[in-house]
């Protein structure tokens, strides 16, 4: 221990000497810095900081006196805040706090000093308590954003199965051109990023004279994309129903539409639930993409709060909310799967 201490002293002495030489060589002004001129004090301090000698920088900054009543006091505040920062960097929390209090004594409203004190206090609190506090602090706003996430999810969950059914029937249609169109829709929307699709709908279409609100654009983008995916899934489901079912339905005189509605499609429910459930869980997460088209849903509110508070916990809490959603959805879908189409198990 003692030995280490010695070495440490030697090292810092070496640094001081090096620094002194540097000063003599490059910053001749420093050595003669007049205490009275704030500008040169700050520039001297900056040079010390640049050289890594925070202690010396603090000493230099100390030369700025408490302000006279007839000056603005800004140099004083600046010097003390910088002092506090330097003490903080040196992990001397008490001294950093003292420097902040120096400022607040004269300017009780000063935001910077106040924020600094709060930040310093936070560092003394254990992580889990801070995290819990952040939860109570950020969750309400995040949940407000989450409402929109759920709204987007549910609306898309209502629209896209209908769209998907339409596309699936379209692809199986006798009208070649219509079937081709449906094929194209599927190919296009499954072949390009949803992000690009949303971008095009929200930012691109106005150039062609079609302008949507962010919410409408989001719903259109999500619904088209998911309709394309569900279209393929539903088609697969319908085609997995044996041909005999359609023939049996026709043989008792049903039309194609009647057979589809009464015989074929009801049989697909059970088979389609697991893949559709998976899509819906993917959907919850994909709603995060609409944050890029100016919609303040969960992801965007997390982003905004992260931007404001620079607090990583915001992202973690948002992740927890998403996890809660996806987990609950998964469980609900497993429940429904067990209930629907029990006829196959009996």
């Amino acid at each position, binding site marked *: 221990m003692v030995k280490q201490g010695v070495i440490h002293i030697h090292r810092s002495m070496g640094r001081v000497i090096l620094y002194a030489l540097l000063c003599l060589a490059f910053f001749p002004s420093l050595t003669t810095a007049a205490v009275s001129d704030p500008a040169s004090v700050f*520039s001297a301090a*900056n*040079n010390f*900081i*640049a*050289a*890594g000698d925070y202690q010396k920088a603090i000493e230099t900054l100390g030369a700025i006196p408490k302000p006279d009543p007839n000056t*603005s*006091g*800004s140099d004083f*505040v*600046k010097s003390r*805040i910088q002092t*506090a*920062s330097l003490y*903080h*960097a040196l992990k001397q929390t008490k001294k950093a706090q003292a420097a902040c209090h120096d400022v607040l004594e004269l*300017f009780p*409203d*000063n*935001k*910077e*000093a106040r*924020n*600094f004190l709060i*930040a310093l206090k936070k560092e003394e609190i254990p992580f889990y308590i801070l995290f819990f506090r952040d939860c109570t*602090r950020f969750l309400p*706003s995040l949940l407000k954003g989450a409402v929109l996430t759920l709204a987007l999810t549910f609306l898309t969950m209502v629209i896209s199965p209908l769209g998907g059914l339409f596309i699936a029937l379209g692809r199986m249609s006798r009208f070649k051109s219509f079937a081709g169109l449906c094929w194209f829709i599927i190919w296009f929307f499954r072949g390009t990023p949803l992000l690009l699709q949303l971008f095009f709908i929200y930012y691109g279409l106005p150039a062609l004279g079609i302008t949507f609100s962010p919410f409408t654009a989001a719903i259109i983008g999500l619904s088209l994309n998911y309709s394309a995916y569900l279209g393929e899934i539903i088609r697969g489901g319908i085609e997995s129903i044996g041909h005999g079912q359609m023939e049996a339905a026709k043989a008792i005189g049903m039309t194609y539409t009647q057979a589809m509605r009464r015989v074929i499609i009801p049989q697909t429910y059970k088979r389609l639930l697991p893949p559709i459930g998976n899509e819906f869980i993917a959907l919850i997460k994909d709603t995060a993409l609409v944050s890029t088209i100016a919609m303040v849903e969960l992801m965007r509110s997390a982003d905004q709060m*992260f*931007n*404001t*508070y*620079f607090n990583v916990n915001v992202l973690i809490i948002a992740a927890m909310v998403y996890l809660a959603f996806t987990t609950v959805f998964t469980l609900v879908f497993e429940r429904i799967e067990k209930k629907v189409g029990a006829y196959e198990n009996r």
Partner: protein
Amino acid sequence: ASFDTIKAKGELRIGLDDSFPPMGYRIDDGTLTGFDIDAAEELGKRLGIKIVWTPTAWDGVIHALNSGMFDCIWNGMTITPERAEKVLFTKPYILDGQVAVVRFDEKRFTSYKDLGGKIIGAQKGSSAIKAIEKLPVKPSAVKEYTDNPKALLDLEAGRIDAVIIDNVTGRDTISKRIGKFKTLPGFISKEPFGVAFRQADAQLLNTIQKTIDDMVADGTMAKISMKWFAEDITDPSKW
């Protein structure tokens, strides 16, 4: 409207975009706060009138002023010749402009001249991008970000060397992230803020201007500036 009608009504309606920290924005519980808010409320106290804040979209703010939705815009509005054609501005009450933010322990540069060949970040589509062209030296690369905080996070992470940002926004962030950043001394470009009135309301403007002048003279403005920026950036002598 003349000052007399305002006085008679007892309220001055001020238009603002309430998401512009630190000039005017809302904190967690939704209350409005900021430099402009403090300054205008002080003005209202002195004139004995109530300040009614009227949030509006920044895009159409001048149109909204001219259509009478409110009496003035007091929201960190940069005085530009184009705007001056459409509205009347007070004298500049604060100096904003583009500055460079670097890491607090940045050892390599102390002035704008040192930024040559470095990687600089700025918000996509902001006037900071234009300000980069005015730098005395050429950076090696400019990275554009969707918003300023992302640029500052990248700066903090050491992925870029400096962020060009407007003074008030930069200072606001620095004050929240104590000990992380500092600005390089001086401005790349200077953009003074003014309060905007309808062109017909010269008389109202005069009354307000006089009160603002008083607030500058007795140090009130300086105090508010100290509160928000830890520095007096309302003092024209320092511009």
